């Protein structure tokens, strides 16, 4: 009896091992892409968006047969592997280590917060795995020199790009409008206040505002600056301080959860009849729903909006939104669309490399040049710059106009002229600052 039992056990273990061997695909049967996303923790809404968009792209590519790898002489499917960074630096390091050393991914995509990305960059650098990063907007992440970033590619506007567009809009459009409407001298400088998140992302934006004012010799004076801790929800005192400096406009560097209370408290509680400027990651359906009427006439920078699309990519925008909703039953955010594009860019790079060798994929990404997909790109192409491997976006400025039918504000593109849908409006309630 004992001998039979032992034999049965050995057979079971043998079958299990055999089954394991046959189930496991060999490395060349698939393209393994690790998706670094905050699936848990405070940034989990964005993390889910990243993951779901990556899945959508992979399913579309796989439905078309997969990614052709010349070395193998066949198309291989994409297999996505999730790496939850838990919205923390430590979580990101753990997730990326696992994706690289245990899952042996061929390519990494994703990454959101600059702080989280910067923490796991050294692991990517040491292991030389190609990584297309859709977040980590701080230039301190893409332009660092303490590690080898040659395997990292950045498909997002950096803090400088973002600041440049806003200060140029303020100087070229808003300042002349104010001076004309209120009978000020043409040379009156615009009084700008900056309210920024006290992180490398926020301080990077603040510094970039100063740098571009200086670089272009813009007629803008920064009259007040205030910072706040990441995740803050009470801005009343900071806004009271800013209001006392009499600004013409307030440039905010926030995440979505910070922007909604900031604008509400500024307009409602502190009584600021001014124009708030928001940077691009905030263009999200939740923002329009949350900010309500207080968002009316404020300015938002964007590259992918839920409710506005430049004519250049309108069809692709509509198709992506429709497919996303069909697959996941919701609306994709900006990090979603960028991840969707990075999966396609990664697949294209593998096809161009003709191999899943990591160095070959890296070289192919270096030379990558594909037509813009959903977000409008400079020169109509997704390509990475030579120096810091950053793609260049055509950012635009939209103004929020009340939509009676929707019961919310909706963005209308007002700048640059090439994408413009309507002119910028200074509302009747607007009051300029006083010298």
């Amino acid at each position: 009896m004992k001998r039979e039992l032992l034999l049965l056990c050995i057979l079971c273990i043998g079958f299990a091992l055999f089954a394991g061997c046959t189930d496991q695909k060999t490395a060349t049967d698939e393209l393994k892409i690790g998706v670094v996303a905050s699936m848990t923790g405070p940034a989990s809404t964005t993390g889910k968006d990243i993951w779901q968009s990556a899945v959508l792209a992979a399913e579309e590519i796989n439905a078309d047969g997969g990614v052709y790898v010349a070395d193998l002489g066949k198309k291989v499917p994409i297999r996505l592997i999730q790496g939850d960074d838990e919205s923390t630096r430590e979580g990101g390091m753990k997730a990326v280590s696992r994706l690289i050393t245990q899952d042996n991914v061929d390519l990494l995509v994703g990454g959101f917060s600059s702080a989280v990305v910067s923490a796991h960059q050294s692991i990517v650098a040491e292991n030389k795995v190609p990584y297309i990063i859709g977040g980590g907007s701080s230039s301190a992440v893409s332009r660092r020199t303490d590690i080898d970033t040659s395997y990292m590619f950045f498909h997002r506007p950096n803090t400088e790009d973002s600041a440049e567009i806003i200060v140029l809009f303020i100087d070229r459009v808003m300042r002349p409008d104010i001076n004309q409407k209120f009978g000020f001298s043409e040379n009156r400088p615009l009084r700008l206040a900056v309210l920024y998140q006290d992180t490398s992302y926020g301080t990077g934006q603040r510094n970039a505002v100063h740098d571009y004012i200086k670089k272009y010799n813009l007629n803008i004076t920064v009259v007040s600056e205030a910072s706040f801790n990441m995740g803050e929800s009470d801005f009343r005192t900071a806004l009271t301080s800013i209001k006392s400096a009499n600004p013409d406009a307030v440039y905010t560097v926030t995440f979505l959860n910070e922007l909604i209370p900031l604008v509400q408290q500024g307009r409602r509680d502190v009584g600021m009849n001014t124009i708030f400027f928001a940077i691009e990651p905030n263009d999200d359906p939740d923002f329009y729903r949350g900010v309500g009427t207080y968002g009316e006439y404020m300015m938002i920078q964007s590259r992918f909006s839920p409710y506005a699309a430049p004519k250049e990519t309108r069809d692709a925008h509509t198709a992506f939104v429709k497919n996303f909703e069909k697959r996941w039953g919701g609306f994709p955010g900006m990090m979603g669309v960028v991840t969707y594009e990075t999966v396609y860019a990664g697949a294209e790079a593998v096809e161009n490399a003709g191999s899943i060798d990591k160095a070959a994929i890296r070289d192919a990404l270096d030379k990558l040049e594909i037509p813009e997909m959903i977000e409008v790109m400079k020169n109509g192409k997704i390509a990475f710059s030579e120096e810091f491997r950053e793609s260049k976006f055509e950012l635009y400025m939209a103004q929020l106009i009340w939509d009676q039918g929707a019961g919310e504000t909706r963005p209308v593109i007002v700048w640059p002229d090439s994408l413009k849908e309507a002119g910028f409006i200074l509302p009747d309630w607007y009051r300029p600052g006083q010298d």
Partner: protein
Amino acid sequence: MAGVDVVLQVLIWGLYAGCIYILLATGLNLIFGVMKVVNFAHGELLMLGAYITFTFYALSGWNPYVLLGASVPLLIIVGIIIERLCFRPILGTGKLNEIFISIGLIYIVQNAAAIVWTDEWRIIHSPYERITISVFGVNMPLDYLIIIITTALILIGLHLFLRRTRIGKAMRATSQNRNGAMLMGINVERMDMLSFGIGAGFAGAAGTLWVVSGQVFNPYMGSIPAIKAFAIVILGGLGSIPGAIIGGLVYGIAENFAIFTLGGAWKDAISFIILILVLIVRPTGLFGESAE
């Protein structure tokens, strides 16, 4: 805006922030005073209060202030359940057990809330959000005045309950001397259950007031207010209700003046600077008793 007006305005923002802190810290102190248990998951009770208000508001469209009548009783029940299932079995078995139980509760409650309500940021709008009144020449949203008055009424209610009712007196007796209270025939386990329930109810009230003031919330929003509440409890003195009230006000006002004078990065730091200074001068906290 003249300088004095700005200072008054900042003082008003500080008073409002102080109200939320007071409610949280008072609840926490009530639990500690009676049970000598440190509940690190107290911020999650605030979050539950916010979501209960949100849910009832979405379903009924009622005035969110009225929904204090839903969030407070429901949180009292939640508190009682937590006390019975989680803390009572390990009471007296060592502080480490209490700490790990409450840390575990943080994750369980956060994840459960994320499953039920998703982890998107939420916000609701008070019916009075557009009404502003003038206080000493400074604009003040009506909502803030209501929040300050509501907090004061809740604290008066607690004071009367603890001083005038038989159960309140029994609770105080248990807080002062647990063994003595037992010998006098007080059912101290019932007092534990009640104090945890009332403490959780206070967190529920703080959650409702958080929501009606126009703050955003998600399942992870409770951690930072809870840390502040702990600091306030230590500052005011462990187990001291007046200490929690004074500590909450001091923190609310100090934080806002720190933002105004030193910048937003100092908001959290100033709380702990005050705490360290007070503990150096008075290690038992402002109102703490040396025996504790």
